[in-house]
């Protein structure tokens, strides 16, 4: 390695012009490349690390909900300066709203605008498609929304519970069907019981007709009691039961009288027999009537069961409504507040500021800048009420401003850096000439970096704006080391020997320095936070070029300088 460096040093000492021609050629190419160099901006997306759940989620939300995606914001602020003037003092002033509406309509016509939302839209929606004409109406509409939300909420919830009631009615109908089946069975039972009564009474009539025995009469009374019990247990209506029991009671009284006036009753026996026959006959009628009545009563019962079920369903629905109302009452007490007020996102609490949100489609940087320019024109040209100040912000607007800062920042920092470095090297060498020579490494290095970036189509972003100044600060070291050592060696040796010693001694340390710097810059990009990765790449290139310039341009110029001394 040392041999190669020494041979190279001798070549530089002998033919510095050849080396300079090669350097000039590369410099010319770099100048051409510089004409292609571009600046670009950075956005929030560029600043945060990728593949992190929390950050991916924010971009997902931006895309899906249009909250934080590519959007610009027009800000309208109350800026009344003079008391008692006719300037607007409240953002809810209809004049302000009208002005915002005009702006919104103009923005909608710009290419790339996905949606525009602001205070006028929400007011129009609540005011049957018209803008409110008075401030009091605006205030009313802005407060109204909460009420609307709550009432619509009541109906929905009530509907939910009512529907639940209807479902229960359906269940009731099913139950009613089952009950109807049970009633039919019961009816059959009643009809059978009546037949038994009829048979028993016929037997009594026959008994009375056939015998005048008093003991038999007593037995008959106990039989009547049994019949009464049977009747009581039957499914007959109360009226019918009363009627039958009335007959039976009459029968019993008759039998009692018969027993008391056994002798006198003999005559009456015939009449009793006749009466019993009539009872039998009327019982037959009652039996058929009873069947018909029972059928009707069953129908009624079915209906009432159905209704009962239905009512219970509705009642549970009402219970639900009651429960809901109860819970809502709780909300009023502060247990739970339902505040759905879209205006909160568009109007500040003190009513001095409102915003128009503009969502944009994905677009190139040039298109975004065109959009911002058009937006600026709209804001400038639209007639505004006195006391209203309009401004724009949001990602595309900030990006444009940042991009505008790139070149001035670069010029400012590079210039300051260059002046500071020049003063230091001149003081260090106590020579203007050597000061300028040592600056050549960074001069050429910076030109080459700029040209290479242009040729490779790499745009310079705001994080790289300070890169040139940093490259100068780092790259000057190479120039200083070479010039310093050459000057020391030149005192003891001729040009060729001095250059040989200089280069062979500074080359390795400079190479290690370059490698170490490259390692540092590369390591910087290895983390997850790679915001300054572009800056690191630019500086890697810069350090490498300054090293090359320090071992080509500076030795050549030093040799030429010595020859012309």
């Amino acid at each position, binding site marked *: 390695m040392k041999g190669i460096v020494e041979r190279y040093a001798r070549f530089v000492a002998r033919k510095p012009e050849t080396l300079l021609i090669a350097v000039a050629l590369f410099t010319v190419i770099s100048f051409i490349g510089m004409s292609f160099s571009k600046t670009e901006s950075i956005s929030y997306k560029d600043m945060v690390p990728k593949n992190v759940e929390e950050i991916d989620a924010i971009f997902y939300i931006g895309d899906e909900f249009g909250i934080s995606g590519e959007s610009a914001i027009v*800000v309208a602020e109350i800026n009344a300066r003079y008391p008692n003037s006719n300037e607007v003092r409240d953002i809810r002033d209809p004049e302000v709203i009208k002005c915002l509406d005009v702006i919104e309509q103009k923005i909608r016509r710009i290419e790339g605008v996905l949606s525009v939302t602001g205070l006028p839209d929400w007011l129009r929606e609540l005011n049957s498609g018209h803008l409110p004409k008075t401030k009091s109406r605006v205030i009313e509409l802005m407060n109204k929304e909460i009420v609307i939300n709550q009432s619509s*909420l009541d109906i929905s919830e009530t509907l939910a519970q009512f529907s639940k009631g209807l479902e229960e009615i359906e269940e009731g109908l099913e139950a009613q069907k089952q009950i109807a089946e049970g009633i039919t069975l019961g009816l059959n039972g009643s009809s059978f019981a009546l037949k038994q009564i009829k048979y028993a009474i016929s037997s009594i009539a026959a008994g009375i007709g056939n015998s005048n025995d008093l003991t038999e009469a007593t037995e008959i009374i106990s039989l009547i009691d049994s019949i009464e019990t049977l009747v009581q247990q039957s499914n007959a209506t109360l009226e019918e039961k009363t009627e039958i029991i009335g007959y039976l009671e009459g029968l019993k009284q008759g039998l009692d009288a018969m027993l008391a006036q056994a002798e006198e009753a003999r005559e009456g026996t015939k009449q009793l027999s006749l009466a019993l026959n009539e009872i039998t006959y009327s019982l037959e009628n009652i039996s058929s009537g009873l069947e018909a009545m029972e059928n009707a009563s069953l129908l009624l019962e079915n209906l009432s069961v159905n209704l009962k079920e239905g009512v219970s369903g509705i009642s549970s629905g009402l219970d639900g409504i009651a429960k809901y109302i109860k819970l809502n009452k709780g909300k009023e007490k502060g247990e739970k507040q339902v505040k759905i007020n879209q205006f909160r996102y568009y109007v500040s609490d003190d009513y001095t500021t409102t915003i128009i949100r503009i969502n944009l489609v994905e677009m190139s940087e040039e298109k975004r800048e065109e959009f911002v320019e058009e937006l600026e024109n709209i804001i400038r040209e639209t007639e505004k009420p006195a006391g209203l100040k309009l401004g724009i912000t949001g990602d595309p607007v900030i990006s444009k401003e940042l991009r505008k800062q790139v070149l001035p920042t670069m010029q400012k920092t590079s210039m300051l850096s260059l002046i500071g470095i020049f003063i230091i090297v001149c003081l260090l060498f106590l020579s203007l000439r050597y000061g300028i020579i040592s600056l050549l490494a960074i001069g050429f290095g910076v030109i080459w970096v700029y040209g290479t970036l242009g040729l490779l189509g790499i745009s310079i972003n705001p994080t790289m704006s300070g890169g040139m100044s940093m490259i100068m600060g780092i790259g000057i070291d190479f120039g200083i080391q070479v010039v310093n050592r050459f000057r020391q060696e030149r005192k003891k040796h001729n040009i060729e020997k001095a250059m040989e010693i200089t280069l062979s001694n500074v080359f390795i340390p400079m190479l290690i320095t370059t490698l170490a710097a490259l390692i*540092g810059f590369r390591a910087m990009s290895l983390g997850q936070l790679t915001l300054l990765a572009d800056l690191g790449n630019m500086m890697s290139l810069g350090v490498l070029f300054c090293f090359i310039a320090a071992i080509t341009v500076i030795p050549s110029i030093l040799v030429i300088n010595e020859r012309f001394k």
Partner: protein
Amino acid sequence: MKFLTKLAWFQYKYSSLIFIVTMFLTIVVALGIQNIHLQTDISKELPQDLDVIKLQNKISDKFGGADTVMILIKLNKNCELENVPKDIRDPKIIRMLVELENEIKKEPSVSFVQSAGSFFAYPESVPDNIELIKQIFAKMQNGEMFFNKEYSATLMMIYADLGKSEEKINRFVSKIKEYIESIEKPACVEVIITGNPPIRVVLMEMLKHDMVFTMGVAAVIILILLILIKRSFTRGVLVFTPLVFGLTWTLGLMGWFNIPLSVATVGIGAMILGLGTEYGIFLVERYEEEREKGKNQKDALITALPSVGSGIIGSGTTTIVGFLALLLASMPMIQHLGETLALGIFCILFATIVISPALILLEERSIEKVEKLELKFLKKGLKHERNS
């Protein structure tokens, strides 16, 4: 450079004292490392004096944003399980939202929570039938704003007043995460916390990790490179030592001077190591060159330090000027980077000029001592052999 000659003489005479004082100072300065605070608010890295940024900050203050935590609830499209919610308006999900919202509202710093669950007081108030829920949101003014177009995701917005303390933000985000963990989530439903505060918490972790990681990688590679080039472990470490001192002082001073660790300054460890290597290299190379000429320690140092020291000071100062020029940059992140790098280069330059020569001498002397001892033992051994 008379000053450097005097310094070289002093270093030759008091190398041990210099080493002890350096160690003591390093411990004191290093205590500042624990004071380094993290700056995770990326918006603060943008030029604060630009009108558009001022307006943006104003909007964030008035309409929330800075302290807004968002909880994203979305259906997992790749889920293959059966009987899982296919619509984000599923009663189970809405109930979960109500439950979560009611829990989060208990936090004192929370000023306002809004989600699709805000319409229901308790989980039990949510209808069982999804169709009814759909009707409720369809009838409601802006009811659909809580859902995306495909009804596969919904949002919960938590507005809180967290102030500027990173610790408070950290605690708040942990608490919200705990709430999310504690509630019962339907299968195949993802609940992700996001927004400015959670992102800042993630950045905090990343800053700590990246700082150590990038610095570690750079340190290991540079040390290996130095050992290989010097063909000696001790010589490699010797060139590397001022870097360690310089870096420790830089980090300590960042803590003492209240310079934050941010996305802009996270890579400075690696950069300082990369840029600071050259000073040690030039000094050690030159000293060795003089020693190879046959000069003793004192003469070699008195020749090497003034001759190479002026170059090193010159290059270090110019580098510092180059970095300080960044204070004129419009982006605060570049300004912070510039001032921190300037501080780092100054520390390494100081360590190289003041401590490195003392270390070189101490290393040589210790080697000489070891060699002398070895020779002594060897002589003793030979004597012993002859006697026997």
